[in-house]
């Protein structure tokens, strides 16, 4: 292990605070974006009363949730009842730590500041970064199933079991859809995968993985929608079913943690889609001196991620939701087979030297 000095600890802390506060602010404003864009699609205005354009709405929501009465149902198993929202939120936010936001580190000296601090564009540069992300995504299932079980409510339990069965089914398709990208990139490290997507073909087409693996991209997109329990895959949470599913009995802050966990997982999965298929922070054809290049790359990354977040909200109000058996059929009978076929095809092409 490398030596830990005060400076490197401070650098790591600065990165953690910066990136995690970006994620949490993003989560807060995603609630507003969701409501405004939903309103726009439904030909109405969303919340616009609190602050200019409704920009202080997430603050109002947070205060409301903090001040609400926190009800624990009698007969609920308290330690797991309290642990469940934590187990859902922490992996969702933590998995953002391995995603690179820019191409190279930024030194504070380059901004004219007197300290010689390097701020790397990620919190953790792990050689198995993609696997850590997938592993943390599979830990989110615990929060769901424990929330259902610890609620002392038969319908919550059923909702929890159904939601978690859906999540583990689509985790399979998710992993298999990601595998061809690992195959052609030859690395599990997200920064390496992004670096390999630089340059252009024929002078204008960026060398992004979506043009090499279009089918894998579609498979990952569908799997990510299902994994996050977003429409059209949100049957366990639909109002007409099982009340609110596994988080029926949760109120106030614990419910807000589930809500935040959903958006945090959306942000992390959008970032994953962008990193794997859309070239991450790559901006083809733009060359600027450091540190401005890093800032432009981070801005490009944010724009691409925001496109996918908008897509999540867009699809929500575009397609009707699946019935549970249709959902499970799709996961096991369609997506898994297609993902396997895609993997075999890419493996054959890679072995033949074409990819």
């Amino acid at each position, binding site marked *: *292990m490398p030596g830990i000095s005060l400076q490197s600890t401070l650098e790591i802390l600065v990165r953690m605070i910066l990136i995690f506060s970006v994620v949490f602010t993003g989560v807060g404003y995603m609630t507003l974006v969701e409501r405004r864009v939903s309103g726009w699609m439904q030909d109405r205005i969303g919340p616009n009363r609190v602050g200019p354009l409704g920009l202080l709405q997430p603050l109002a929501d947070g205060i409301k949730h903090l001040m609400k009465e926190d009800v624990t149902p009698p007969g609920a198993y308290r330690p797991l009842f309290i642990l469940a929202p934590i187990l859902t939120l922490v992996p969702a936010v933590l998995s953002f730590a391995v995603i690179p936001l820019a191409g190279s580190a930024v030194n504070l000296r380059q901004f004219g500041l007197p300290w010689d601090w390097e701020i790397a564009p990620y919190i953790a540069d792990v050689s*198995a970064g993609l696997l850590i992300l997938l592993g943390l995504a599979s830990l989110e299932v615990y929060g769901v199933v424990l929330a259902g079980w610890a609620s002392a409510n038969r319908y919550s339990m059923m909702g929890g079991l159904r939601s978690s069965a859906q999540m*583990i089914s689509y985790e399979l398709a998710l992993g298999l859809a990601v595998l061809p990208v690992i195959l052609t990139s030859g690395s599990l490290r997200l920064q390496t995968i992004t670096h390999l997507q630089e340059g252009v073909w024929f002078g204008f087409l960026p060398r992004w993985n979506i043009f090499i693996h279009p089918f894998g991209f579609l498979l990952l997109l569908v799997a990510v929608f299902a994994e996050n329990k977003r429409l059209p895959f949100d049957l366990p949470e639909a109002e007409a079913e099982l009340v609110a599913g596994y988080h029926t009995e949760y109120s106030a802050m614990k419910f807000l943690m589930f809500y935040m966990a959903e958006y945090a997982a959306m942000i992390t999965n959008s970032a994953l889609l962008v990193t794997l298929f859309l070239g991450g922070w790559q901006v083809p054809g733009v060359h600027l001196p450091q540190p401005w290049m890093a800032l432009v790359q981070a801005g490009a990354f944010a724009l691409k991620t925001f496109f996918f977040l908008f897509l999540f909200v867009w699809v929500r109000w575009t397609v009707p939701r699946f019935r549970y058996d249709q959902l499970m059929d799709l996961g096991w009978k369609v997506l898994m087979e297609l993902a396997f076929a895609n993997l075999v095809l890419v493996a054959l092409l890679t072995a033949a030297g074409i990819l």
Partner: protein
Amino acid sequence: MGSLEQILFLGAAAGAIVSGLMVIWHRSAVLSALFLVANLGCIAILFLTLGGQFLAAVQVLVYAGAIMVLFLFVIMLLNPAASGPRFRTGRAGTGLAFALGVLFVGALVRGVWGLRGSRELLTPVHPGFGSAVSVGKVLFGPYLYPFELTALLLLVAMVGAVVLAKKDL
């Protein structure tokens, strides 16, 4: 071995031991399963202190994230009573269990005691331990046949489960 590494190792090892003990001590099956998940997390941290990032990630992804989730499913669906076992072991059974336990602990202690002061404990692992490359080379090299046979074994288990569960195929 810096002090941060020692703290991390001691913390993860203590966590692994405590959660392992709680697995067998706790009355409720669900909590036992969750303590097993905590144990696996601690072992993943131990892999990380050795530099095996791939192994740590796979430990969390496969064991803690998939296998234990299915354990939890089964436990929650079958809902075993948390009020203790339905039969009682006789005194001969308890005595035999105790004797076997003492023998096992004695063998463990003797094995660890023999290693004290040995140079083997201080050799660092080779670079690339637990990385995707080294695991892949071993898995597709010398251990290819056992790997494929294990996959076949899992397939057999799955087919058996489907046959047992479905009344009419």
